[in-house]
């Protein structure tokens, strides 16, 4: 019986080690799609399932595939700001390249400054994104540590004899570790900093694009915003000029039951 338990722990240890290896590889490669070499059968099994599911399952609202990598929790979280459509922007990269070659003087000074601000915003965004990615990676490592600890504590009295039990326990550990972080002030600040930096980048990008649109006398979002504001003001003035309708009509306050009224209305 003891021998059997030892083997049980072996495969769990192997699975946890494999997860650590995968996380470390992902961290090094900075490639969200990268996977560790699927040497053990557990991992191969799961990946086969993921691939099959990824081909068939409906896509979620932000275009990501939730099942594509059930272990990549950090990537899913970063998606909150990525949904603003800013990361991996070739435009921002172009801005950075252009900056190296253009001095902010002369006729193109204003445009150059715009590109410089865009590049600076992009760099800041990437830096904070990396910080947050590191924090989320640590959550996943800590979750595996906690999982090891929980498995040890269960010991022979409550052996883990199925992959599903191990997986569910991993989820539980992950949520526990993450919850402590998520409620912390430092995490709230870091996540907000990324959001703010992303919005700064987006604003800078809009400025650069709008400048280009104006060169061709094409409408811009700023112009649309002005129109929407004006329409809103005019609408408000119009409603104020009309008599109020919201007050209840006192004549309706009769004892007549609404049932009769409804019936009467239906007969009509």
């Amino acid at each position, binding site marked *: 019986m003891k021998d059997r338990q030892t*083997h049980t722990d072996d*495969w769990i240890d192997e699975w946890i080690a494999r997860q650590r290896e995968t996380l470390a590889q992902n961290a090094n490669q900075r490639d969200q799609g990268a996977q560790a070499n699927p040497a053990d059968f557990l991992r191969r099994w799961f990946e086969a399932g993921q691939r099959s599911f990824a081909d068939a399952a409906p896509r979620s609202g932000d275009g990501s595939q939730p099942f594509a990598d059930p272990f990549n*929790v950090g990537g899913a979280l970063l998606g*909150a700001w990525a949904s603003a459509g800013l990361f991996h922007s070739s435009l921002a990269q172009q801005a950075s390249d252009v900056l190296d070659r253009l001095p902010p003087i002369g006729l193109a000074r204003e445009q150059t400054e715009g590109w410089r601000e865009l590049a600076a915003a992009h760099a800041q965004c990437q830096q904070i994104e990396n910080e947050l990615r590191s924090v989320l990676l640590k959550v996943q490592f800590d979750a595996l540590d906690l999982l090891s600890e929980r498995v040890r504590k269960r010991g022979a009295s409550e052996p883990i004899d199925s992959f599903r039990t191990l997986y569910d326990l991993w989820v539980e550990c992950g*949520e526990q570790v993450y919850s402590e972080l*998520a409620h912390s002030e430092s995490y709230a600040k870091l996540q907000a900093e990324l959001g703010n930096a992303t919005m700064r980048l987006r*604003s800078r990008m*809009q400025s650069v694009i709008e400048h280009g649109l104006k060169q061709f006398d094409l409408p811009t979002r700023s112009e649309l915003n002005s129109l929407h504001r004006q329409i809103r003001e005019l609408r408000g003035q119009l409603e104020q000029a009309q008599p109020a309708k919201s007050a209840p009509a006192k004549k309706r306050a009769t004892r*007549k039951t609404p049932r009769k009224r409804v019936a009467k209305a239906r007969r009509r």
Partner: protein
Amino acid sequence: MTNVDVDKIQREMQEFSQRFARGIGALADVGSVTLGSAPKEQIYSQDKLVLYRYSPSETAVRKDRVRVPMLICYALVNRPYMMDLQPDRSLIRRLLDRGLDVFLIDWGYPDGADRYLEISDYVQRYLPKCVDVVAATTGVEKINLLGVCQGGTLSLCYAALQPERVRNLITMVTPVDFRTPENLLTKWTEHVDLDQLASATGNVPGEMLNALFLGLMPFRLNSQKYVDLMDHIEDPRALENFLRMEKWIFDSPDQPGEMFRQFMQWLVKENRLAKGTLQLGGRAVDLKNVRMPVLNIFASQDHLVPPSASRPLQKLVGSRDYSAHEFKGGHIGIYVSGSAQREIPERIARWLRERDAEK
């Protein structure tokens, strides 16, 4: 060397793979899922807003009928068909079965033209108009108002500003005190530059909010939920239910930029509603004006609107007829779980019936 446990695990995986393969076929056969089930008709529309009236239930017992019509004010986040997802998961159907005359506001999908809509537009323009239409349609002066989630917060504001139009107020998973320790979304909002957010995005993308909601429990919501799906992927009915829920979760309208900014800044960050410092359209929103009967329903395991955000309503409203109902479940379970279907509509109908006879 033979190892019993590894053999068992290998079998587990083989079974899983086989089930998975069969499930893929089932998934392909499901097709598109239908949403909403109870017959209804559009009785009013304004801008993106549509007001519906549901057809009375044929099985409703006449003597149980609730005289005063009920208007449901749903949140702007997500779509209101959650209240009537499918025949056996429909709070609205269960209310109709109990003799309620149900109206529902669908706020629609805001677009760029709506980015400057404010909270006051919803509380002092759209909602009063819907109340007027419901009242005129049914021949009453006062209506019963059921506010859901953010729609409950808007309903509270309306009831405080126009208490003479609300006979009974029901709030469901409604945040009123946003600054409680359990409220993770509030913590995350604390350092966000909301002015910049609204300015840069215009309308705040629904996808962005969804990603934040998933971030509240990332391991469960991004991973475990889909692994658990394998347990019933061969059951077409269960699969349909799952896909229907997925559709609802990710069918998220963008939030009108200025409305979102005001809501997050005034109500969430500054907690003005609970503090009594909220002003809309130049008028103070004083919850002490909410003197009509109030039924406050919240969920004990709600990770989006923790009970601690809803419970303080009791001390904030001026009503002497306050009731609370704590449902054992989560934010979504309160609409669709089997226990919710049995418990919530009955509680609402009974509570309203008890007050329907009163003057």
